[in-house]
């Protein structure tokens, strides 16, 4: 039995706090993105699981729908057009008293016509004289609305607002911009760790030093080079290969450093054994180092991928804003400006942008943890 101590309780509580602090907003965003846009605007996401009471105004049909039956004229119809699953429990006919009548009771309008409203929205409007107005009358209802969710927002956002294309663009940026540095840096880190060459330590020191250079400082110089290069060959300075290279460059130092950190925890005797066995550096790298480094590759893949996926600045600088190139974060920012009041679009867009990071994290997280603690425990 494990001993319960103050610190263990504290750490468990802290963990619980972080889990809640992370799960609750994410879940809320997800639920919001699935709600009807009208409901979303007036109530919080947490109300969507229970039946809620809402007050609404409907209008009856006008004279065109009337039928004569005996001495009376009737308009029979349903307040809800389309199968809404609401349940009316009170209604009213004046704005002063919107819940005057119990459902099933008969209400009297000022013009002496009578109306009866039923639970499911059916109503019968009865008059001695012929209905003359084209427009119907307003009915105020108090209804219970059961939980309901819809994928309409996703259809809207992905197809009409162009977020789907932006999603694909981001994927086209993020995958190469993660894999290229990972491949380059794995070779690089191997050389830094296990090959002896002149100036190795200085190179390593340079890499570590370049970790502290903010990338904002390099944007303009790099873009200038791109422009010159583009002008020279008559191609656009802003392109996918351009941003891949930019992300690769910006990620090179940290990726190399992290990989170097991991590779040097591999036992040197094992590498030497491979050399005695006749392995060249390339053999050692491919057959020994890479298979043993999968956990750290995975964790660095996650870090770099999330960084590129969530990046806005580099994407804005090195890619155009037209639909075939715009990335998700830039698109979201644009939506925030133009459709800032349409919460259904923003929540859905935000959740779409989160799906891939969530998927990556959950599918690779066991490697992530292993990669981060690599070397701290004896194998």
């Amino acid at each position, binding site marked *: 039995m494990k001993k319960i101590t103050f610190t263990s309780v504290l750490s468990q509580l802290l963990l619980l706090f972080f889990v809640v602090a992370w799960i609750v907003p994410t879940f809320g965003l997800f639920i919001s993105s699935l709600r009807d846009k009208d409901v979303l605007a007036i109530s919080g996401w947490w109300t969507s699981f229970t039946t809620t009471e809402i007050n609404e105004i409907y209008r009856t049909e006008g004279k065109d729908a009337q039928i004569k039956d005996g001495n009376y004229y009737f308009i029979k119809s349903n307040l809800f057009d389309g199968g809404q699953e609401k349940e009316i429990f009170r209604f009213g006919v004046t704005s002063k008293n919107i819940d005057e009548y119990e459902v099933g009771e008969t209400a009297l309008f000022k013009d002496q016509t009578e109306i009866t409203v039923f639970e499911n929205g059916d109503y019968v409007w009865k008059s001695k004289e012929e209905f003359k107005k084209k427009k119907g009358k307003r009915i105020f209802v108090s209804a219970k609305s059961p939980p309901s969710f819809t994928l309409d927002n996703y259809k809207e956002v992905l197809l009409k607002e162009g977020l789907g294309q932006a999603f694909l663009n981001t994927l086209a940026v993020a995958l190469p911009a993660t894999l290229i540095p990972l491949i380059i840096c794995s070779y690089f880190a191997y050389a830094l760790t296990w090959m002896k060459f002149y100036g190795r330590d200085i190179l390593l020191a340079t890499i570590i030093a370049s970790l502290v250079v903010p990338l904002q400082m390099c944007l303009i110089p790099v873009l200038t080079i791109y422009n010159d290069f583009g002008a020279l060959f008559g191609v656009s300075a802003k392109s996918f290969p351009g941003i891949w290279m930019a992300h690769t460059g910006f990620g090179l130092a940290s990726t190399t450093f992290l990989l170097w950190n991991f590779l040097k925890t591999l036992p040197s*005797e*094992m590498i*030497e054994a*491979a050399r005695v*066995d*006749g392995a060249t550096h390339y053999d050692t790298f491919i*057959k020994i180092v890479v298979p043993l480094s999968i956990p750290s590759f995975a964790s660095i893949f996650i870090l770099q991928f999330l960084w590129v996926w969530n990046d806005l600045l580099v994407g804005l600088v090195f890619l155009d804003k037209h639909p075939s190139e715009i990335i998700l974060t830039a698109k979201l920012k644009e939506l925030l400006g133009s459709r800032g009041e349409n919460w259904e679009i923003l929540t859905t867009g935000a959740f779409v942008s989160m799906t891939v990071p969530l998927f990556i994290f959950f599918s690779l997280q066991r490697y992530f943890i292993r990669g981060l603690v690599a070397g701290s425990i004896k194998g």
Partner: protein
Amino acid sequence: MSSINIKSLNKYYGKTHVIKDFSLDIKDQSFTTLVGPSGCGKSTLLRMIAGLEEINSGTISIDDREVNDLSPKDRNIAMVFQSYALYPHMTVFDNMAFGLKLEKRSKEEINERVLEAAKTLQIQDYLERKPKQLSGGQRQRVAIGRAITRKPQVFLFDEPLSNLDAALRVQMRIELAKLHEQLNTTMVYVTHDQTEAMTLSNEIVVLDQGEISQQGDPIELYNKPSNLFVAGFIGSPKMNFIPAQYKSSSSESTEVDALGTNLILPKKTTSQSDEKVTFGIRPEDIHITAESDHDWESKAFVVEKLGSNTFIYLEHDNEPVVVEAPGDSPVKVGDTIKVKFDLDRSNLFNSQNTNIIG
């Protein structure tokens, strides 16, 4: 044929001179052990033979071929490391076949050689396991197996047994001796454990600070250590060193003053009168006696009973003097013990330069 010749070898780590103008001939099919305390350069030397350390100056030849600039794989050697250095992601079979696969041998040949090595080491049943599913002794067998499959001319062992527990170490020691008998190749073995050196090798090289302190077969080193360092290093428990004063010498005997008495050693020595010397005698050459012609007496302050024998710790000037007695010795702590030295088997060392004088 695979002798190793090392000529005027030097190695520096920065400004530290680790291997100092080192020359050594290792005979074909010998089991040579490099032994010495940690930091004496024995592992560095082995790694230089393997090609894992650069040579600053001097030459190493294997089989009369200079190998200074050859990579490890071209030297026809195999090495067994202290930490086994197995490839954790491969099965035992793949670990042992790794070198052969790199040599692009045929599948049948790889199979045959691995199985043969596995049979020799009795690890046939584990071929499909990963190293982490094996015990320490099994892992070391795999590491040795990996070396055997390549059929090298020279085997290099870098403290291969020091990660094993005591019982396993004894067992593996015997198996290594058997292996040398079977394979009949040159083996170079590095250890800091003098027992391993004594039991396994037919040639011991004692290293001290990058230089050979003494070289010879185990019994020679045990009986005639050329200096205090070797005398203290070989043998367990170690030889007793007792400060003494040189008195006089004739062609047949030497008289020294130690432990407050005159000791007459039946051998010729050369030293100055009144010079400080060190009288060295092994625990088994000190005998407990009841007679009155004893050389020295003292109180026992520790008694170690091992069953087969007993070690009694006497004291002189706060320095212990260890006496070996039979297992059934009735001596208890606090007893006063009378001892007689087997002076024929004792040694005398110069206290200044630590070399033997008789």
